[in-house]
């Protein structure tokens, strides 16, 4: 079971001080938050992707590569990578590059994005968002698994003899989570490929996502990846912790009430009761999170939002600290104790390498000398099956 944090990268006004951090301040702050998460033993740090203010994270792989260089153990991920408005070819390249630099501490979560104008800004149409997402992932999946891809589809130009470089680290692609909050086709795609399914589990009633999670589990089994209980499920959540529950509510209240979307529409108490938001002592947050396991079944990844709503850096760091020292150690123990022995572990680069190669050495793709194209022969790499290797005319 992995525990960590995810951020949508909003640059929000601190409703208590009245000040809004600059982009520069928030970008520095998020690297500190990620480093602290690594130091206190959290397993995952994930960052969103946006292309409009007031967000700062337009280029997750740049940020995550920097964080990778500053951290030791934490897995770096996204929440989410836009599979619609990005070219899947560029996603294949960027995240493979990141995976090499982070020495395998990388996976990613794919989502469609719901900001209408971003689609046309990137030459796409939100009304085609679903088939676009599905087709793009189908291509991405192949780009990471086949050295040379011939492909033709609807939403991007066709590819002939294309090799996405670098090949994934150890020739094992980053693990992919598909994020969806309402679309059964996305759960189906996650299930078909044996990938993970992630429900953001925020801003919606308790257990609202259970039908989708159950659908994904059922279809995961249908496609022969294991039992429904072995499917790879991730959940989000939002937490604010203080040692005493009344302090948590008192400290969090001005940030919640100052939030433009929720504060003026909902009472904090209603939101705490009716949605997965946890505000309270470590014990209360633990209790609520154990309820997720009960309601959704054994799952593999739990992420919390801790830096939204204009929370200042010091408070966000304290949240990370409390999660890492007081909440997660207990949750690890408790969830492990309640877990079915059948339930899958969260996939990591090393577990995927083991699954692919066993004890054997992983493949290390090494290109052949430049011959100017990828079109002849089965692969531009030296370990191409000799039967399929290109035959060059011999010069006499």
């Amino acid at each position, binding site marked *: 079971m992995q525990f960590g944090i995810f951020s949508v990268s909003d640059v929000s006004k601190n409703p208590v001080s009245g000040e809004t951090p600059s982009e520069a301040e928030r970008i520095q702050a998020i690297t500190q938050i990620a480093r602290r998460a690594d130091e206190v033993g959290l397993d995952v740090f994930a960052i969103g992707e946006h292309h409009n203010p007031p967000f700062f994270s337009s280029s997750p792989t740049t940020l995550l590569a920097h964080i990778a260089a500053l951290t030791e153990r934490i897995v770096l991920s996204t929440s989410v990578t836009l599979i619609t408005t990005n070219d899947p070819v560029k996603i294949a390249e960027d995240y493979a590059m990141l995976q090499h630099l982070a020495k395998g501490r990388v996976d990613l979560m794919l989502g469609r994005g719901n900001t209408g104008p971003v689609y046309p800004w990137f030459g796409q149409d939100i009304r085609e968002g679903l088939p676009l997402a*599905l087709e793009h992932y*189908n291509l991405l999946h192949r780009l990471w698994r086949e050295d040379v891809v011939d492909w033709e589809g*609807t939403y991007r130009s066709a590819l002939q003899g294309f090799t996405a470089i670098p090949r994934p680290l150890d020739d094992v692609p980053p693990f992919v989570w598909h994020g969806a909050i309402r679309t*059964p*086709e996305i759960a189906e*795609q996650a299930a*078909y490929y044996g990938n993970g399914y992630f429900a953001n589990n925020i*801003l919606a009633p308790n257990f609202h996502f259970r039908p989708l999670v159950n659908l994904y589990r059922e279809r995961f089994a249908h496609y022969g990846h294991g039992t429904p209980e072995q499917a790879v499920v991730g959940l989000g959540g939002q937490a604010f912790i203080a040692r005493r529950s009344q302090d948590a509510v008192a400290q969090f209240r001005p940030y919640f009430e100052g939030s433009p979307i929720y504060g003026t529409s909902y009472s904090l108490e209603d939101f705490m009761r009716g949605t997965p938001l946890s505000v309270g002592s470590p014990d209360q947050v633990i209790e609520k999170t154990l309820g997720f396991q009960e309601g959704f079944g054994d799952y593999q990844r739990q992420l919390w939002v801790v830096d939204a709503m204009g929370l200042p850096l010091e408070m966000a760091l304290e949240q990370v600290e409390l999660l890492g020292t007081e909440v997660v150690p207990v949750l690890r123990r408790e969830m492990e104790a309640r877990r079915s022995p059948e339930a899958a572990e969260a996939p990591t680069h090393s577990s995927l390498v083991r699954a692919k190669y066993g004890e054997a050495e992983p493949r290390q793709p090494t290109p052949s000398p430049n011959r100017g194209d990828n079109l002849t022969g089965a692969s531009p790499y030296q370990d191409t099956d000799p039967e399929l290797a290109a035959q060059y005319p011999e010069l006499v």
Partner: protein
Amino acid sequence: MSEREPLRLVAISAGTGNPSSTRLLADRIAQKSLDSLREAGAPATASTVELGPLAVEIARATVSGVRGEELQAAIERLAAADAVIAATPVYKAGISGLFKSFVDLLDNDLLVAKPALLAATAGSARHALVIDDQMRPLFAYLRALALPTSVFATPEDWGASELGERIERAAGELAVLLRAGVGAEIADRGWGGYQHQFAGNATRAERSGEDLDFDSPLMRLAAGGATARLDPSEG
């Protein structure tokens, strides 16, 4: 026939006064509809959803997407209804914003093929076309079966027997349509052809793999197939 479950009529009233003439109109229509059904030997029950007390939850759900418990209960009551009576006051030459805001929160398939009796109250007979101009298109969008007769009432109507006759006529249409089972049969036959939301509020909403069509173009694309648009034979 007597063994089957009573038909469920649900009236929505966007009236806010107390007493409210919109609520009064909705109640009279509901009562007449029950009478018509009972006369024809079809047991039925009626209940009313008052939107006034839900106004805050409706507004919150509009901006945040999160439905409060009472609002959710009202939506579920409508989902389970066999027929709907929708009554709104006319404000500023249009249907009440509260009424429209509530309808905006309904799943697109919540009222598919359900008989809908449309009603409105206004301060002046000059607003008489609001039902036809605004409510009919709205219920057409929802694929509801709006009845031929709608009921519009202004202050002077409450002293005229013609209002009672119009209510009776509309209630009679509702009873005929319900007893014939037209709406239920349309939904039975064509449910798959309407737009749906997975795990939505409609009573027939898809809730698990058993309910889904995995042979649809998008589902095939999800399972590694080619993009639907490439195959014109898919329509």
